């Protein structure tokens, strides 16, 4: 599967490495190249500079050939906008986006976006440990 990851922070870099190990073809996109240092030295995929809320940047990153798009920047609204572009402009089959704000996450899930909320997941996992 061809996967485009927007946002090369800890989660983005780790996910890129996991997916690549599992045999997928991974491209990473970030507005700041400093995050690319978090990728493992063995990473063979593309690491590109670009803004995932910009259609031209997404096109340059090859979004038209991607099977999945994952939005993992630190900013909820950037992720939401980018995932909607991937879905409604480029018809990417699977567009996943991270939303820290639980109510916003719930609303966009209702609106048909494939969202997940680290805040809620983390809280649940802590509750389970008690």
């Amino acid at each position, binding site marked *: 599967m061809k996967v485009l990851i927007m946002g090369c922070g800890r989660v983005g870099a780790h996910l890129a490495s996991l997916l690549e190990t599992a045999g997928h073809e991974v491209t990473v996109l970030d507005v700041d190249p400093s995050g690319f240092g978090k990728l493992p030295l063995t990473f063979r995929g593309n690491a590109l500079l670009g803004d995932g*809320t*910009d*259609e*031209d940047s997404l096109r340059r990153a090859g979004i038209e050939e991607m099977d999945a798009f994952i939005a993992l920047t630190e*900013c*909820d*609204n*950037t992720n*939401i*906008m980018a995932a*909607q*572009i991937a879905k*409604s*402009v480029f018809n990417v089959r699977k567009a996943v986006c991270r939303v820290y*704000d639980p*109510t*916003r996450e719930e*609303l966009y899930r*209702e*609106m048909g976006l494939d969202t997940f909320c680290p805040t809620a997941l983390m809280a649940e996992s802590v509750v389970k440990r008690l």
Partner: protein
Amino acid sequence: MYIVIVGAGNVGYHLAKAVLSKGHEVLLIDRDAAILGRIEDELGSIGLEGDACEANTLEEAGTARADLFVAVTEQDADNLVACQIAKHRFKVPRTVARITDLKNEPLFKKLGVDVTVSSTILILQYIESQTSKPPFLTRLAVLKGSDREIVDVRIPPTSAVVGKKIRDISLPQNSLIILLIRRDERIQLPTSTTALEAGDRVVVVGDRSSEAGLHQALAGS
């Protein structure tokens, strides 16, 4: 009208001031309490501190009874999300987003924002109007609640319709010439036997999607 404005920067501040003076009820939302404080010193208590992309803030703002929701922060993504939440969660009938990236105009419409406003686009249009020859087609109005528009079309001298009668011109479907402005500015009501001349302007009602067809029909040589 009750108008919720998001973003108390220059645009938000002047907009709030202007609509207040027209007698509307206004609430201005911003994350920056200091900026809101300065504005409230001048305009009274119209501010709400908070993140307009959080449902709680919009709840507190009484967004559900807003007639108009206007997001004018500097960030296109923030304006998009605030408008989408206002629309989907609070059922605001009209949402307006400020955009800075031209490409976001069609995108935001597709994603449910009712109106986009961009100073970039306005200035660009002005520059184009100053630098290019008179445009073939000028949009005069978009008919409310439909996909029809009224346009002003200039007939170029090279056009195949020069000298032709209106009944012999095949226009796109649903298009109708409603007024004729001759080169010397005389205004005429066109009939089927009126012949078009080079430099005439015709006012046409038609589908918004037919602009290219109209160009083909009236400017094609």
